[in-house]
């Protein structure tokens, strides 16, 4: 019994452990770099002298790619969910559903390799883009978030009680009118949560951006230029052997804290929204 309880506590201990690791090492970082510079500085140049640690370019990269990926993944994911839940025959469902599950199981390194060796050459041909650019990663991440959005949104749509649909039909609405005006609004909180979690997944993803987005921290908002995200910086920086306690080592923890806090806040909001939906329909 005690063992069972302790096991259940591991997740809580790990959460606290992650937070403490990030914050304690992050605080050491801020002994050498001013918080002001870190939060509002627009130059991220850890390798040049004088070193500059303004995190805004990394945040820009993270959100540019995260938002771009959501713009691709959310319509496809939610559209697929609506089709599966409201329109698809059982036979179609039995093919599409496992396909989505398999897509969810594909390791991220594979998306990264496809981004750099398949997507990038296409973008170079069509738009004259450089080899490494934000669009490579954005397109691939857009595909990567489809399964999580589809699965969560479909659950939300299926939880909408039958009576709501029947009420709408009784008033003479077509299938699509029922779906769009009654079912989707009833599932709106679940669909919102799906969107949020998809976005959170996109900004936390590492391999695609590390391989294909270019590792150049800039303030440019163009998708056809190289950019760097928080996750790509962490992975790239950690690939070398960093002396414990050096500013380079500590910078990983500082930006890691920012990433953790962003995803944490988004996830908490998503959980809250989901809980509200569950209260509504049991």
């Amino acid at each position: 019994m005690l063992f069972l309880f302790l096991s259940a506590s591991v997740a809580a201990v790990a959460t606290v452990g992650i937070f403490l690791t990030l914050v304690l090492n992050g605080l050491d970082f801020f002994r050498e770099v001013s918080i002001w510079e870190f939060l509002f500085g627009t130059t991220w140049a850890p390798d040049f002298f004088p070193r500059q640690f303004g995190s805004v370019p990394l945040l820009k990269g993270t959100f540019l790619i995260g938002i771009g990926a959501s713009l691709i993944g959310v319509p496809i994911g939610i559209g697929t969910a609506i089709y599966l839940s409201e329109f698809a025959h059982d036979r179609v469902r039995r093919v599409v559903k496992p396909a989505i599950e398999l897509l969810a199981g594909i390791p991220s390194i594979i998306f990264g390799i496809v981004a750099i060796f398949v997507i990038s050459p296409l973008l170079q041909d069509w738009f004259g883009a450089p080899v490494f650019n934000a669009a490579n990663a954005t397109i691939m991440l857009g595909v990567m978030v489809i399964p999580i959005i589809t699965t969560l949104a479909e659950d939300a749509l299926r939880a909408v009680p039958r009576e709501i649909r029947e009420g709408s039909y009784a008033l003479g609405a077509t299938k699509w009118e029922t779906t769009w005006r009654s079912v989707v609004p009833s599932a709106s909180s679940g669909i919102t949560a799906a969107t949020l979690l998809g976005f959170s997944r996109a900004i936390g993803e590492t391999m695609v951006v590390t391989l294909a987005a270019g590792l150049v921290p800039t303030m440019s908002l163009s998708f056809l230029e190289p950019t760097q995200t928080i996750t790509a910086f962490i992975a790239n920086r950690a690939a070398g052997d960093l002396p414990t306690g050096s500013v380079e080592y500590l910078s990983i923890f500082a930006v890691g804290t920012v990433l953790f806090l962003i995803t944490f806040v988004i996830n908490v909001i998503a959980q809250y929204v989901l809980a509200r939906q569950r209260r509504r329909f049991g």
Partner: protein
Amino acid sequence: MSRLDLSGIDPRRKRTDRLARAALAGVAFLSVALLVALVGTLVVKGAPHVTKTFLTSYPSRFPSRAGALPAIVGTLLLGAVSMAAALPIGIAAAIYLQEFARANRVTTLLRASIGNLAGVPSVVFGILGLALFVRALMLGKSILAAGLTLGLLTLPIIIVVCEEALKTVPRSMREAAFALGASRWQVVRHHVLPYALPGMLTGSILALSRSMGETAPLILIGAAVYIGYMPGGLMDSFTALPIQAYYWAQDARTAFHDLAWAAVLVLLVLVALGNLTAILLRDRYQRRYKW
């Protein structure tokens, strides 16, 4: 689902209905097409390079002699270590939460932290692994440090799927056992676990697949680029398929890019085998018990 009678309806509304239906079907088809295209690309690009040399050799400076043997072994070892660490804890946690926990604040907190942990980006787990396992606990850049990190990463998944498995066992089973005087533990041990086990197994295989496919945490832990020997012990340095593919893909020589394709194809096969086994097991046991 019965067909709606749309005969008396304004033709414009009918047209919108048909258009919307077609558009949604198109979008759903696109999702499947993307998967097919992705897997197809991988097979076309990777299959010609998955040779006997590739599967049985060590990495090399010469692409024609380079292989992924230590990476394949490393990936399997990491999967084994992470599951050895995460399965007992995950299953115990699920049993506690589902069968023993009371509805109080502690339980709410535990559940919230599991939900949160599931949403933490994998690279952040890598940071924890680096600071905690590699440096503080001085495990070094070892299979053990990486396996424990991956175990922690898959823990929330295991807990959630095991809880789902426990939930499918009907209440009446438990109540019947209680009525015969069984203790709570006896009920769980003899009447709930046996029926929940297949579901737990299925979920665990999915978690195993997930842990074998992770790359970012391994970069943080410090997986090696070239391993010229077979990793034998838990404290050995290691490489893994995703890491090997990552470094090959970054090489300037295009011959190494072919090897990267081959490596991710082998990785996909390993992961897909896991997922397929899980799906087949699930179907088989779903049919066996009809409550």
